[in-house]
């Protein structure tokens, strides 16, 4: 996978001096102190990071990959501030996943003055294996035993003094989510800064292995890694790590060195009867076991997981588990959409008020292009993004809660079998469900997946799931083309085919683009923990902010572009005006507001629909001022770039049964799916319409067959994900190739499906 290659090359932005030279005192003031946080997933690293940095942090992605990157700054003694980076949570530092590779690279080349290894005190045996690896890298370590509250409650007592003596580095206990022990942790960091140590030689993996490692270490070329990390490189070469071997091979003398290393490995494996990778991992575990035997003066009496086990007996139950999960999902979606609705209304009216206010700045009759750009291009475009914010905030609140309590992992356990059939992961389920609401938060929810491949596949297929913004389109099209009895089944069929196609495409992607073995599904089920409100809110706001940033950048520029396409060039002399001037048509004043409202609401709609079934073009007689305005709008759009593009592309879409009007409206759908409805309204000179417009339905029914309707529904369901989707896929996947591949891939699929349906349907005589 190309991401792997990229991940290895995460380049430091600044020159990184070899930081951990024990002898060299730190020249303070010359460069900023750099600190890294490393630890297993779920050890409370994020909580600690938040506690240390406060608001001074930045969340983003590593370039080219889907891995989250967190940077922050922490204030130390004497007004100094240090850069703090939160490494991806990993169980080990192999080169087998982008996360681990990034963590490894950061540790080796990041030039960190101190590496804080965070460990979950309730599971030290496994957590400290990472410590052993960081020690082997020659880092200047501070060990932070987090979750001290839980460990203490279970009765575990650790002799910290003894531990410091044996390890040779500062050791502190913390309670991350309560922000306890931060002073001690900072003091420990200061101590490590004052007297940096290289713990490499404290790591004892066993006589025979250490002897073999010493032999390999002498063979590691001088510039292969930084000097302190030679032991680490030796271990990697001894266990035949593909990346290290490849790098060594590229050096001039690499091959002969490799042969000698292979000889050492062969001898070691023959003598011990196990492969080197296992021996080394066992060595780490053995070291940790030995250490813990010396420092744990009292091991836990109570089972720290007792409560967790009781809860799991119900929520992860073979039979009860799924219904409980379904209820939980339902509750989250219900809350998202019911609680999100009023604020959405407020935001909409807020933007309307803003538009009104901006309009008011231009005196009547002097409206300019700038006004149109401001109101339709900028306020309209940004408003369209911000309007989803309440939903996004609420959904992410629910998701963050599920994630931080540990329930998310249980839900993945329950649905993994189903998802895995289609090459997806149990944790893909929630993003996909979210996609029914809106594709954007769905794509962002793929962050909860641990594996890059799973994240990429899930985000690729997400637009196939019919989002909320497409509902207006279905509400317009389905009643326009199908009799009442068919409407509900059609709507269901639309949603079901979207989901089925998403699963199918995921399956094919797995077979084609991500050939080869699945990433191992070895998913930890962490103990349940009550998250703090602050922790959950922070996570929610971070993600919402990432979403909002889009409104200011890509989405804004594309909406301006789309606005320009529909606004230019302007028609100088409207045909309708000419006809009015020629006396063919007379314009009368608009009916009073009250009448209009009444006519809109009540059953007059039907009568209007009948009237509109006639071509909208006025042959003779009278039109109202509003109708005149609408007819001008129609001429504008027809002559605009968007209209011309529609007309130019028409031959391409003819085989699907579309004319230029549909193609032009689809350009609008790229801005946001629901814009399709509005564009159709303009094209049919009906001014501003919504999806419930009977006039528009009647016009569609007149101009197109139900077969075209199906073809159109298919195309809008599958193809042309909206620009926000593209933008968010770009930011979450870290590469344009994936976002554009998604856009063109899905559009091609949509074209093919619509083509087949339309042509076959025509042959069958529909």
């Amino acid at each position, binding site marked *: 996978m190309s991401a792997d290659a990229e991940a290895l090359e995460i380049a430091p932005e600044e020159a990184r001096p070899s930081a951990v030279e024990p002898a060299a005192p730190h020249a303070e003031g010359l460069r900023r102190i750099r600190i890294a946080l490393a630890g297993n997933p779920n050890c409370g690293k994020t909580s600690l990071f938040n506690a240390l940095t406060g608001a001074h942090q930045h969340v983003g992605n590593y370039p080219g990959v889907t891995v989250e990157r967190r940077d922050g700054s922490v204030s130390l003694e004497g007004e100094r501030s240090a850069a703090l980076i939160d490494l991806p949570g990993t*169980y*080990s530092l*192999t080169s*087998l996943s982008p996360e681990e590779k990034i963590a490894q690279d950061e540790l080796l080349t990041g030039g960190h003055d101190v590496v804080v290894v965070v460990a979950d005190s*309730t*599971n030290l*045996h*496994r957590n400290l*294996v990472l410590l052993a690896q960081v020690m082997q890298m020659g880092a200047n370590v501070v060990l932070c035993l987090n979750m001290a509250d839980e460990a203490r409650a279970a009765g575990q007592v650790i002799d910290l003094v003894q531990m410091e003596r044996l390890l040779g580095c500062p050791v502190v206990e913390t309670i991350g989510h309560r922000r306890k022990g931060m002073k001690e942790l900072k003091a420990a960091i200061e101590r490590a800064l004052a007297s940096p140590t290289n713990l490499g030689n404290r790591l004892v993996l*066993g*006589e*025979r*292995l250490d002897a073999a490692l010493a032999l390999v270490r002498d063979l590691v070329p001088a510039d292969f890694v930084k000097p302190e990390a030679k032991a680490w490189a030796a271990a990697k070469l001894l266990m035949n790590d593909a990346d290290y071997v490849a790098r060594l091979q590229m050096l001039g003398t690499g091959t002969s060195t490799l042969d000698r290393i292979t000889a050492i490995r062969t001898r070691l494996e023959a*003598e*011990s*009867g*196990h492969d080197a*990778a*296992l*021996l080394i*991992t*066992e*060595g780490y*575990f*053995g*070291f940790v*076991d*030995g250490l813990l035997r010396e420092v744990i003066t009292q091991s836990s009496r109570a089972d720290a*997981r007792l409560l967790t086990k009781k809860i*799991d007996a119900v929520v*992860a*139950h*073979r*039979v009860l*588990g*799924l219904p409980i999960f379904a209820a939980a999902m339902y509750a989250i979606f219900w809350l998202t959409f019911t609680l999100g609705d009023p604020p959405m209304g407020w935001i909409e009216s807020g933007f309307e008020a803003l538009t009104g206010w901006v309009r008011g700045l231009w005196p009547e009759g002097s409206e300019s292009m700038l006004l149109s750009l401001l109101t339709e291009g900028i306020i309209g475009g940004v408003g369209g993004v911000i309007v989803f914010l309440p939903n996004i905030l609420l959904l992410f609140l629910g998701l963050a809660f599920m994630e931080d309590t540990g329930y998310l*992992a249980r839900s*993945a*356990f*329950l649905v*993994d*079998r189903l998802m*895995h059939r289609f090459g997806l992961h*149990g944790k893909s389920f929630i993003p996909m469900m979210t996609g029914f609401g809106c594709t954007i938060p769905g794509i962002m929810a793929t962050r909860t997946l641990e594996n890059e491949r799973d994240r990429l596949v899930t985000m690729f297929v997400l637009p196939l799931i019919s989002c909320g913004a497409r509902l207006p389109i279905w509400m317009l099209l389905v009643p326009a083309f199908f009799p009442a009895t068919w409407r509900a089944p059609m709507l269901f069929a639309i949603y079901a085919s979207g989901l089925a196609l998403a699963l199918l495409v995921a399956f094919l992607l797995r077979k084609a683009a991500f050939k080869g*073995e*699945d*990433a*191992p*599904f*070895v*998913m*930890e*089920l*962490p*103990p349940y923990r009550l998250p703090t409100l602050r922790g959950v809110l922070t996570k929610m706001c971070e993600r919402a902010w990432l979403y909002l940033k889009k409104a200011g950048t890509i989405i804004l520029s594309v909406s301006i572009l789309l606005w320009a396409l529909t606004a230019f060039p302007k028609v100088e002399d409207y045909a309708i005006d000419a006809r009015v001037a020629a006396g063919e048509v007379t314009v009368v004043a608009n009916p009073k507001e009250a009448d209009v409202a009444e006519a809109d609401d009540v059953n007059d709609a039907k009568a209007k629909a009948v009237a509109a079934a006639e071509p909208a073009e006025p042959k003779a007689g009278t039109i109202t001022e509003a109708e005149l305005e609408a007819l001008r709008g129609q001429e504008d759009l027809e002559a605009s770039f968007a209209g011309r593009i529609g007309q130019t592309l028409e031959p391409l879409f003819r085989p699907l049964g579309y004319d230029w009007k549909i193609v032009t409206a689809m350009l609008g759908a790229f801005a946001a799916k629901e814009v399709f409805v509005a564009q159709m309204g303009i094209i049919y000179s009906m001014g501003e319409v919504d999806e419930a417009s009977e006039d528009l339905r009647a016009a569609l029914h007149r101009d197109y067959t139900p077969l075209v309707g199906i073809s159109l529904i298919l195309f809008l369901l599958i193809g042309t994900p909206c620009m926000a989707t593209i933008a968010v896929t770009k930011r979450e996947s870290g590469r344009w190739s994936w976002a554009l591949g998604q856009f063109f891939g899905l559009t091609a699929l949509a074209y093919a499906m619509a083509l087949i349906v339309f042509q076959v349907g025509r042959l069958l005589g529909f």
Partner: protein
Amino acid sequence: MKTLCNLSPGQSARVMAIQASTAIRQRMFHMGILPNAQIALERVGPTGHPLWIACQGSQIALRLGEAEAVLIIDDVREAEAEAERASATTDLDSRGDQR
């Protein structure tokens, strides 16, 4: 040869070996699924898998494919005998001092 898939919920056993690709082996090793470790099947998913296992203080979900790669010995005495036989060929001096 028995694998994790042969256990029923509630049963435990000892890991003998993991027969899988480097990626899977490494991942399992680092999660604590190592030869000689005690391993227990806690529960299974709605359709019989994934498997939910407990090993060295961690709770871990494994798919069928991964679970089949974990070879086990179910009897403790048998495990000891096996370990002893292995120790005849394995080095006790290099690892015996830590385990």
